[in-house]
């Protein structure tokens, strides 16, 4: 059975979904947190790229991919807190700042990343979870990176915290009605600053996965817009962390379509299949604009819904 091309493609897509979805998942969770507080950070593409570069450089210099992940997160904290600070200034638009931060993050990463394009940094180890299947392809597909599991845990923690903690309710309040938050004595700017910073941390960790696990090297074409697609993904997931994970898996599977087909010898239209995530983004945006349901769940303070 393991030679049936359809099965091979399916298994390859499952494995691909798990690998490719991880950065989507982290960026989407970060964006979800930021948007829940009522602000959009479009700069997460820059955070992803800078996080990937810094994680790779740190792992190469120290020999520890785990320190690399922390460095990627730190890059995200830096860019996120800068975004949060700039948006606290009067009459500053979060979308414009986000686009500037995207260029800034990418520019920094390309500038400092030049020397790290050639060297080989240590990669994150994977946990073999598929040994019991006895099918080599499946075992290969189920080589799961710990960050994937961390991402799922983070989504569960976020979903729980939004419903069951004081901070979760304060973030949702701030995102839905700044006036109500101020009436409660909450500093709206401070909550959004923290949410953007922590969101940046998550996106930076997502970037470290790109360079340290899959594809597992640093180059300038590494992200190819995944940080921007994550914004669409959050809308598709209707601002729910759990749905963010599922949407990330869907995007991951779409991204794995091209390589999976290639593995069974279908090379016709390889680039077209590689464009699947982008086509999916367009289709999702069209579908979610047609159904008004997505925007009913949107935090009331977001500048896209105002």
């Amino acid at each position, binding site marked *: 059975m393991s030679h049936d091309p359809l099965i091979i493609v399916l298994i390859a897509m499952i494995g691909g979904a798990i690998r490719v979805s991880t950065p989507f998942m982290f960026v989407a969770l970060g964006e979800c947190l930021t948007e829940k507080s009522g602000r959009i950070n479009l700069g997460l593409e820059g955070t992803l790229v800078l996080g990937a570069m810094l994680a790779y450089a740190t792992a190469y210099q120290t020999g520890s991919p785990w320190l690399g992940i922390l460095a990627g997160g730190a890059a995200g904290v830096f860019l996120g807190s800068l975004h949060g600070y700039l948006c606290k200034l009067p009459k500053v638009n979060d979308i414009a700042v986000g686009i500037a931060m995207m260029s800034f993050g990418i520019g920094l990463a390309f500038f400092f990343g030049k020397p790290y394009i050639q060297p080989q940094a240590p990669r994150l180890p994977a946990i073999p979870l598929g040994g019991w299947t006895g099918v080599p392809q499946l075992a290969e597909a189920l080589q799961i990176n710990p960050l994937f599991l961390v991402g799922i845990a983070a989504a569960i923690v976020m979903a729980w915290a939004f419903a*069951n*903690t*004081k*901070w979760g*309710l*304060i973030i*949702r*309040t701030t995102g*839905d*009605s700044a*006036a*109500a938050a101020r*009436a*409660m*004595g909450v500093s709206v700017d401070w909550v959004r600053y923290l949410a953007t910073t922590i969101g940046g941390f998550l996106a930076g960790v997502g970037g470290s996965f790109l360079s340290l696990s899959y594809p597992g090297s640093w180059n300038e074409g590494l992200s190819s817009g995944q940080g921007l697609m994550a914004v669409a993904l959050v809308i598709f997931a209707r601002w729910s962390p759990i749905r963010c994970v599922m949407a990330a898996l869907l995007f991951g599977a779409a991204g794995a379509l091209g390589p999976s087909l290639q593995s069974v010898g279908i090379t016709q239209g390889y680039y077209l299949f590689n464009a699947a995530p982008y086509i999916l983004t367009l289709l999702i945006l069209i579908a979610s604009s047609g159904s*008004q349901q997505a*925007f*009913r*769940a949107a*935090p*009331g303070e977001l500048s896209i819904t105002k």
Partner: protein
Amino acid sequence: MSAVPKRPEPNLGKRAIALTVTGMTKRFGSFTALDHVSIDIPAGQFHVLLGENGAGKSTLVKCIMGFYQPDEGALAVDGRDVAVRNPRDARALGIGMVYQQFTLVPSLTGAENLVISRADAPSIIDWKKEKARLAAFMDRMPFKVPLDKPVSALAAGEKQKLEILKLLYLDQHFLILDEPTSVLTPDEADEILGLLRGMTQRGELTIVMISHKFREVMAFGDAVTVLRRGAHVGGGLVKDLTPDAMARLMIGDTVIRERAARTAFASRPTMLELAGLFADDDAGRPAVDGVSLKISAGEIVGIAGVSGNGQAALVEALAGQRPLRDGRIFIKDKPFEPVRKDFDRFKVFGLPEEPLKNATAPRMSVAENMAFRAFDKPPIAKFGWWLSPGPMRARAAELIAAYKVKTTSPDAPIETLSGGNVQRAVLARELSGDVDVLIVANPCFGLDFASVAEIRAQIMDQRNRGAAVLLVSEDLDEILELSDRVAVMSEGKITYVAPVAETDRTTIGHHMAGH
């Protein structure tokens, strides 16, 4: 009942508090918004603040709540002098306020809204425990509101109850209510005010309510304070006062234009016909749901309804601001499309609500705004596109004089005018020509008595000249005063139509509530 008092449980004790305001004065630059106002509100009183817009009611309550620091004057709670530096101080004293706008968070449930509003909300919320506490709290409350639904799914009356519950939950025993019934049906208003009155009579609460509905004052208030231009001009116990006496105190010596007489018409042909109109709201849900209505020449049809039942969408659809999903509009039996060409051809004019937002370009000049209907026609325009500022300003100057618009010059941006003057400027633009159909929405919202009387008289004049008038208003008194026929809109449908002589407030109120 145990004899030994335990730690006080919230809202169990009868702990209404008394408040004394002495010589309260607040100046903004050279303008005195509040001029040595003194009020004594004993514990358990239902006290009403009356006054026109700008009379100083909200300045007074903002001083009490600590939003403003008064220049002079003192506050005492239960006879003890207190300093209220900010809203948090007011809250600590047990003084809370229900604002005109809802302060609940729409996407949170009622329970989440209540718990997070507490200053000592726990970091990790044990919902089982909190739900049990909330249930025990709700058992003691006269108000019943579902707490497990998101606030956005609640009706306006339920939201208003939840706002009040929130203050009671926070252990506030002195409530300031700012026009709490403006978004409610008469029945909902009576229910909520009746329950609150019960709580004041049991000594659990003291209430100050800002209102200008004399009916509510007479039915529920114990005492009244009337403010005019920042000063305390009268008041006393409600049982010693009449609505006329209160109105005279509120208005003072301002001359009010006489109510225009209603001309009788022998036969009236149908002027405006709405045939099965459907339109959706911004979220794609049906807002106008099959509205059919005929309005004759020389007739005012008033559409009553609680805000948010499709009246705004109907006016927008007629004004061309919202697409019609289905249905036709006829004027004098000819099909009408809400586009500029047809507005001119059929002489259709409109006064939308919030005119600064809906009928003007705020930063353009008064003259330009007044020329919106005529800027592309002679004498202002040649060839339909070459504009001459001279005739435009001359025309504006005429209208400004005729309609008594107070502006520094025709070239001032219209947003610098006061609300009443923006409304007059739009009125001048829309009513100066020959009007066949007039569509009016909440024309007097937020205006003083003199402007209200002037604008209502203008609308009546147009009717007497033979225009068909569609009046949408959330003010039932306005509808009863002006209309020849009353229609009620509920959930996007016209649920009731009757000549004004054959109906009354109660019947209309029941239909507004969807009964």
